[in-house]
Each structure stands twice: as C-alpha cells, then as structure tokens.
C-alpha cells in the first residue's frame, strides 16, 4: 500500500502543472503516468503553442514538456513513476494501479485526475482496416518514435488536431491527399488551415468518408459530399489511392476513474462527452477529488496547463498547505482561463463549462 498526500493521475500538461503547483506546498505528491514517457500529448506536438507567455506561447509542445519536467524533477517531494496505470477507484477511498508491472494499492488524501482524453471513433465501412488510424496514433508514430505510417494519407477532420497532424505528416514526408471535414466550416484555427492549404492540400468541407478499401491493409479511400442533413450525396464520390487514413473527429474526456470514484457526472457535447461537475477550484462533487485538463472537458493544451496549476493549488489548499499568495495565484489562473476561453472557439466551451459548474448555492455537492 502506498500512502501519499496527493495522487496526480497522468503526466500530461495538466498533470505536470498540477504536480508542480502542489509540489511547491511541500506535500508528498505521487504522479503516475501510464506511458513509458512523461509529457502526455505535449511530447508529440512539434508546433509552437498559442496563448500567451504564461502558457509558454510560441514554444513547441515537446519543449514545454521538458520545461515542466525540469521543474518537477527539482522537487524532492514530488515523485513521478512512468509505466504506471491507475486501474480503479473504489468507494473505500483506495485506488489501485499497475506500477511497473506490479499491482499496487494507493491511499491518497487528495487526487488530481488529469487523465486526458481519448480519440473519438467514426464508424464507416472499412474503418477497422489496418492503415486506418486515430490521428493521435499517427502523431505518436511519427513524432515520438520517428516512424512513418506509410506514404499517402487522407485526413478526416479539420479541427485543430486534423489540421496539425496533416501538417506534421507533410513535415515527415508523407503526401497528404486531402482533408475532409463533415461540417460546412473548418473547425480548427484558420492559420493552421492556411499553412496546410498553401502546401497544396485540399480542405474539403461538407465532406466525409464513404468507405475505406483494401485487401490486407488500406488501399483506397472514398470521400463524398454531405448535404445539409449530413447525408452523403450519391454521385459526389471521390476515391483516393491512399494507404493511410487518419481519423480526427474529436476527443472525449477519459473519465472512467471519476465515474468509479463516484463523482457526479454529466454529458456536455461542447466539452467532448461526459465530464464531472466541478466548482471554480476544479473540485469535483467529491471533496478530495480534483480534475484538470481534457478529463475536465476537451480544450487546448494551454488551458490544460492552467487548469493543472489551479487544481494543484486547490489540492494543496485542501491539504491545508496553501501558499501564502494562493488567492492571487488562483485568481491569476482564473483570469488566464477566462482569456483563453474568450475567443470564438472559447464561447462554446465556456457555455459548456457553465453547465458543469457546481454553483455553491445550488448545493450540488
């Protein structure tokens, strides 16, 4: 049995920031990461981040991961273990984990759940053929391991992930034949779209995949246009000779552990799926469990980092180890988040977050 003041689940942008913020309080922090490398999706991001200086804007994702890890490694009270998957949360307050192949039980005083998100699937004929990947999988292959998926790719989804991974495919030397987006408008940042478009990659809005074909692995992809009821229009089919099809149709929060722990949950489309109710301090309906990053609602990594810091501070406060300037620091986080969410993409997220917010007066706790 492992006893710790704070258990942070996930060493992505939110978890690392939470561990750093809480670690400054001097409390024992254990951060468990299921992958064999820390940093979460940050290590696969080759592009410079948006946001402002406080969120490391204009620094590349993998460099941000190094900065955060350096901070974390400098703290003797913060222990990080990779190859460590938290397996379950039980109603007696125990959590179990597979740590380096060993089954362990953990009794934490507080928990920050920063488990991130899962890529959404899309069901279409041939969607299970080898060569059809989640876009994140291709990012892992190329940017973490330096291996190409294959040679000729079609991307499904023109949200930020679809656009960024398409660009990264080009950078790695893969030909990107087309980006298809079901909705009538590009969902990701237009600057991402523009830099892809000027490389000659067509972005086809109101288009989706009709089917993927291949004998043993993907050989061809047929796209078709969608009408305003999202139905395919016969006669508009275009078939590409492609060996790679990336699915980037959104993320859903990885919230299984929060369900198991007994947090009150709700479904918010704008946040990607089921998320926990939380107050302004990112405390869930259970007083000792906090949430940050995509697990709290899918957003950009910049917001995840700020949320991580806020959740880490809140957890320290819960553990009676709040820094003297906690009020200022929390307010700073809140104002950063307000800024990051004030753009046109942010409006939808803000509305979604409002649904999931525990209003103290309403007494959802």
């Amino acid at each position: 049995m492992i006893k710790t003041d704070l258990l942070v689940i996930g060493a992505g942008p939110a978890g690392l920031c939470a561990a750093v913020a809480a670690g400054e309080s001097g409390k024992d922090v254990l951060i468990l990461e299921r992958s064999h490398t820390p940093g979460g999706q940050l290590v696969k991001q080759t592009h410079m981040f948006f946001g402002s200086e406080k969120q490391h804007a204009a620094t590349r994702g993998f460099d941000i991961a190094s900065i955060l890890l350096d901070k974390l490694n400098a703290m003797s009270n913060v222990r990080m273990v990779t190859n460590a998957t938290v397996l379950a949360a039980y109603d007696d307050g125990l959590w179990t984990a597979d740590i380096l192949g060993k089954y362990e039980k953990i009794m934490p005083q507080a928990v920050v759940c920063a488990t991130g998100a899962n890529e959404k699937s899309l069901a279409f004929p041939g969607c299970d053929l080898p060569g059809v990947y989640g876009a994140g999988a291709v990012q892992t292959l190329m940017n973490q391991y330096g291996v190409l998926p294959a040679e000729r790719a079609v991307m499904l989804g023109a949200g930020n992930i679809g656009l960024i991974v398409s660009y990264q495919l080009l950078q790695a030397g893969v030909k990107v034949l087309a980006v298809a987006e079901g909705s009538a408008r590009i969902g990701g940042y237009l600057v991402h779209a523009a830099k892809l478009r000027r490389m000659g990659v067509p972005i086809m809005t109101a288009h989706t995949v009709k089917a993927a074909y291949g004998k043993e692995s993907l050989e061809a992809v047929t796209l078709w246009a969608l009408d305003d009821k999202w139905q395919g229009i016969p006669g508009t089919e275009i078939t590409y000779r492609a060996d790679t099809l990336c699915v980037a149709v959104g993320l859903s929060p990885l919230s299984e552990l929060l369900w198991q722990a007994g947090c009150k949950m709700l479904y918010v489309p704008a946040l990607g799926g089921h998320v926990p109710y939380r107050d302004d301090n990112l405390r869930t309906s259970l007083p000792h469990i906090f949430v940050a990053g995509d697990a709290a609602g899918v957003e950009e990594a910049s917001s995840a980092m700020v949320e991580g810091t806020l959740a880490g501070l809140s957890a320290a406060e819960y553990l009676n180890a709040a820094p003297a300037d906690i009020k200022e620091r929390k307010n700073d986080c809140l104002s950063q988040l307000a800024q990051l969410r004030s753009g046109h993409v942010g409006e939808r997220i803000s509305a979604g977050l409002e649904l999931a917010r525990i209003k103290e007066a309403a007494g959802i706790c």
Partner: protein
Amino acid sequence: MRINTHPILEFKRGAAVTITFDGKPIEARDNETIAVALHAAGIRNIGRSMNLHRDRGLFCAIGNCSSCMMIVDGVPNVRTCLELCRDGMTVETQHDKGVLA
C-alpha cells in the same frame, strides 16, 4: 519506414535489438514499442479480430483500443502499442483468442 531527416525533431533512437516476427528477424530499437518496430519494417497488418478474423492494425497507439494485440514470447493478447522491444523477443500474429500456455 523510419524518418531520417525531420525539420523540427531529432529522434533519440535506442540501442539496436532484433525481434522475431512470425519467424522473421526484424531490426528494432529498445526504446520503441513492438507495433512501432513492425511499422518501421513496413508491417502494418499485425492481427486478426477475435470472431470474424478481420485484419487488424495499429489504431490508437496508446493502449486505448484492442487493435494491436499479438502473442509476445508466448503470451497472447499483449498490447504491442505499449510493449517495448527487447532483444530476442518473439512476436507472433494472433489468429485466435489466444492460447494460454
């Protein structure tokens, strides 16, 4: 195929190891997963589905799905997107639900 030149990234390749895939030796690195090493060798069809025996390949790459399960050193249902390569490791395509030794 491995990426040799990249405009942004430098790859820290691990030590060279050899794994065996369905009897054939495959060059791999000790800091990459089995599925990655197979991709680098151009092998993308790495399994069969349980009931319909449909071809399966890497899909999520981070242990969220069940698309990359193979027999590793005799143990079935190993997620090859998570398991790192070790020298001398035996990797086999799994054509059934898996046979426990």
